[in-house]
């Protein structure tokens, strides 16, 4: 057994990866939005959302929309393992991009499923924005990528379930990563 305590991080700046904001749903909620993200444009290069959530409807997808852009500007690709087969596909251009999966109403009690979503070069004004996600529902694991065809610097990041609401207790945390 190796006793564990908090050790000084070795060779890693404390500010290279920082928590910006955490939202925990106190009641069922239809969406969450990280806003005022322009304030971090000079500090971070990439952003990451980490979540543990479930929806009020059967197993479904989780979607992102940036800067409030609801135009048909998002293309999604995925690789999905559902426990019996692997499938892949793409869709878009759509008014939002699917970044992961959610456990749904058919999941066991206390079963909230995780996801880690990376938005790379979030503040670049010379690149379209790209997102990668690894997440799970109660029956599948999925790798996703989203292209937002827009070179605007990020100002907001909205996250919604495909339908229904996020269940109370769902948690979303936004982190900034320096580059």
């Amino acid at each position, binding site marked *: *057994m*190796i*006793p*564990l*305590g*908090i*050790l*000084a*991080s*070795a060779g*890693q700046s*404390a500010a*290279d*990866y*920082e*928590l910006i904001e*955490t939202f925990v749903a106190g009641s069922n909620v239809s969406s969450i939005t990280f806003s005022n993200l322009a304030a971090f444009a000079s500090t971070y290069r990439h952003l990451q959302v*980490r979540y*543990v959530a479930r929806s009020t409807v059967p197993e479904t997808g989780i979607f992102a929309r940036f800067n409030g852009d609801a135009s048909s500007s998002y293309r999604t690709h995925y*690789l*999905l*393992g*559902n*426990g*019996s*087969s*692997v499938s892949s596909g793409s869709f878009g251009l759509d008014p939002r991009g699917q970044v992961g999966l959610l456990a749904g109403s058919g999941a*066991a009690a*206390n*079963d*909230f*499923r*995780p*996801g*880690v979503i990376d938005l790379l070069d979030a503040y670049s004004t010379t690149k379209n924005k790209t997102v990668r996600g*690894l*997440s*799970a529902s109660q*029956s*599948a*694991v*999925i*790798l996703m990528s989203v292209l937002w065809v827009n070179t605007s610097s990020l100002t907001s990041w909205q996250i919604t379930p495909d339908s229904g609401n996020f269940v109370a*207790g769902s*948690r979303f*945390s936004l*982190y900034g990563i320096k580059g």
Partner: protein
Amino acid sequence: MSYVALANVTLGANASSVTFSNINQGFRDLILIHTGSSTNDSINSLQLRLNGDSGSNYPQVLMAADGGPVSATFTDSGLICGYTISSGGAMNIAQIMDYSATNKHKTALSRHNAMPESRTRAIAGRWTNTAAVTSITCRVDTGASFVAGSTFALYGIAA
């Protein structure tokens, strides 16, 4: 600090398991990174047992590229973080989310890559227990040992 190194272990000798105990409850998520090989000359699962629970309490689903695409569901006696083989070259990363919450089962996302066996896998698992995670035992499911030089790093992600 938002990404804190909690412990780093490099094995000086072969070991049947590595346990991180008395895990600080002040973070949101844990990330465990393993590199190395095992003594068994076959593909072994790298298994994480939470709070010493060795029961069949870890339902999981995997997606793999093992020369062809594969997906499977299974229940194990630990979270399968990845795989390890005798020829080395395996890297496994497990993210255990909301590990200190007491109103949720514990869920994990893992990625595995290995050469020279040329495999990559993504695994999602759940520990059907709402207890906060206070210890993680890393072991090889076949009872083989981790080879000297194998590394284990545990990080806490800020709440």
